[in-house]
């Protein structure tokens, strides 16, 4: 049993070791890793970076190709300029060669005949010499080999002309016999043959250069065509990528829009469901409560004589509980409606709003000694009915929680007034609250006091928060047990009061 299990690892090792001897040809392996690294890097990028990397690569390629093509074309154009120069130079050299030749021949005729007419070409060459030289120097500019030859040619021309001038002087001074030998052989035979040689050399040099440049231009042109083709291909790839990306983007957008619409429909359905839920809460949950209170009342009436005090209290508790539950349901419905209701957006005069609230609370304020400090408030943007509920809740709360004070103080003021936003507070010197419960204060049905201390369902501040949030504001509170409480809220203002 043991030996086969021991052997198994050996068997499994064989296929493992097997491929290794095949892999050693290292060049394909390293070649592969050379390609794999950038591909892995590319795949690790986000889609946006991939697009950026791809586009950069293509742009760089197009840029390089454009630069190289431009330089190639410039080179071809420069070559053709050089060609023109070469042709001109060859033409000029031929002309000089012929002119010098003609001068020498006519000079000989002059020596033989003494006819001044034959000196015309000699004189014209003397006149043309600076032009020839300037032209030559210009056409060989930047080519040192040719410039050297030009210098030699210039020297030879000068020597020829000097020899001829000498011969003319001798003829004039000493007569034909003195120049007879020169008249037969020519005054500057050596210089003329030297000029022929230099001109032939220069011509051959230029022809070689021409041939070389033709080959060079042909190669460059081919090169440029290939590069431009690659550039066109890259541009095509770029266009195709752009097309693909735009299409992809449009498809994606369409998908998102569809998804949004689907969600919207779901949300609408959910909202409808919620509405029908609150409808049935409003309708069906209240009915049994009505019955409880109704029958309790009927019962009390039916047995009123035989009821003892305890039984009366029980019946009263049944009625009170039913009523309380009815109140809770109503409050909850108001709260839920507050979230769904359409909101107005108008300027609201908070000073007027608070005046009417105090007027509406006048019955609750009877028999109370309250000192009010109410600041002039700015006009805010919002729904007047909802904001009325906010301040009604806050002020009624302040009145309620100061009921244990012999002298209550309630203050409505501005904490901060920034551009576009105002922080308003309602402060009282009532029973306050422990800051550790501050987070619970604005919750639905959250109460920090016992029912027999202060009545209420615990929905008021939840409504305040919901309304202020719907106006784009925030709510928070500060307090201390038995010292009082301050409720803050922010609201968007219509304009700044200076």
């Amino acid at each position, binding site marked *: 049993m043991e030996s086969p299990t021991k052997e198994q690892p050996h068997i499994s090792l064989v296929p493992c070791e097997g491929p290794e001897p095949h892999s050693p040809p290292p060049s394909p392996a390293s070649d592969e890793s050379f390609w794999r690294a950038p591909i892995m890097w590319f795949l690790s990028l986000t889609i946006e970076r991939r697009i950026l990397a791809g586009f950069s690569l293509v742009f760089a390629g197009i840029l390089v190709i454009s630069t190289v093509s431009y330089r190639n074309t410039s080179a071809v154009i420069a070559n053709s300029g050089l060609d023109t120069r070469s042709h001109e130079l060859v033409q000029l050299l031929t002309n000089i060669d012929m002119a010098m030749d003609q001068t020498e021949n006519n000079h000989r005729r002059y020596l033989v005949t003494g006819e001044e007419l034959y000196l015309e070409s000699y004189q014209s060459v003397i006149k043309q010499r600076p032009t020839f030289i300037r032209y030559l120097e210009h056409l060989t500019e930047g080519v040192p080999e040719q410039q050297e030859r030009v210098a030699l040619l210039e020297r030879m021309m000068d020597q020829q002309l000097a020899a001829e001038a000498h011969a003319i002087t001798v003829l004039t001074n000493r007569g034909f016999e003195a120049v007879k030998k020169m008249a037969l052989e020519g005054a500057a035979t050596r210089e003329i043959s030297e000029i022929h040689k230099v001109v032939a050399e220069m011509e051959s040099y230029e022809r070689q250069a021409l041939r070389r440049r033709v080959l060079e231009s042909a190669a460059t042109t081919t090169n440029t065509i290939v590069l431009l083709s690659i550039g066109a291909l890259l541009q095509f790839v770029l266009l195709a990528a752009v097309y693909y990306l735009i299409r992809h983007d449009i498809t994606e957008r369409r998908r998102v829009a569809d998804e949004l619409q689907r969600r919207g429909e779901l949300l609408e359905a959910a909202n409808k469901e919620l509405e029908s839920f609150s*409808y049935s809460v409003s*309708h069906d949950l209240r009915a049994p409560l*009505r019955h409880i*209170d*109704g029958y309790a009342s009927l019962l009390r009436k039916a047995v009123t004589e035989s009821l003892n005090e305890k039984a009366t209290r029980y019946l009263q508790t049944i009625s009170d509980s039913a009523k309380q539950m009815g109140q809770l349901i109503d409050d909850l419905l108001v709260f839920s409606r507050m979230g769904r209701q359409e909101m107005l957006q108008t300027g609201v005069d908070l000073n007027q709003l608070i005046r009417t609230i105090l007027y509406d609370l006048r019955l609750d304020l009877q028999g109370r000694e309250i000192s009010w400090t109410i600041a002039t408030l700015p006009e805010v943007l919002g729904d007047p009915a909802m904001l009325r509920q906010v301040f009604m809740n806050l002020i009624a709360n302040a009145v309620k929680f100061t009921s244990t004070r012999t002298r209550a103080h309630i203050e409505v003021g501005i904490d901060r007034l920034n551009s576009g936003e105002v922080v308003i507070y309602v402060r009282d010197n009532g029973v306050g609250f422990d800051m550790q419960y501050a987070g619970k204060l604005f919750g639905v049905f959250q109460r920090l006091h016992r029912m027999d201390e202060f009545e209420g369902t615990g929905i008021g501040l939840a409504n305040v928060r919901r309304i202020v949030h719907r106006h784009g504001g925030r709510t928070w509170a500060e307090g201390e047990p038995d010292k009082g409480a301050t409720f803050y809220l922010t609201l968007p203002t219509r304009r700044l009061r200076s």
Partner: protein
Amino acid sequence: MTGAKPIVLAEDNPRDAELALAAMEEQNISDKVVLCHDGAEVLDYLYCRGPFASRMKGNPAVIFLDIKMPKVNGLEVLRTIKADTHLRPIPVVMLTSSREERDLGESYALGANAYVVKPVEFHQFVSAVKELGTFWGVINEPPPQGSGSGK
């Protein structure tokens, strides 16, 4: 003058019906009340059909309509009444649990004469029913009989 005219109370919930009747009893108008348990019955009564085929002709003084009822709901009954030239003059009071704006708006749009939300508290309920019964059943002067349903 109006003493003989009946009051129709459409209420599918027997407890609500009993409570309403108890409230009306205090006002001594309970004997004039005709109780219908759903919308179909209300229409049968108004058109003198089925169990009401042999009733005395004439429109009731007022109809108290619950909205949520089986078979034919209150809003449908209201629509039928206000679409019928003979029935249109009958005052219709929507007496319902629903405080929903939708129901309120639709009721008034269909031509309801009043909309009363049944209070949870029985004493309030009693006083509401009392006042409604007294106002519509006793005080309010009904339209002349000629415009009623009598053929």
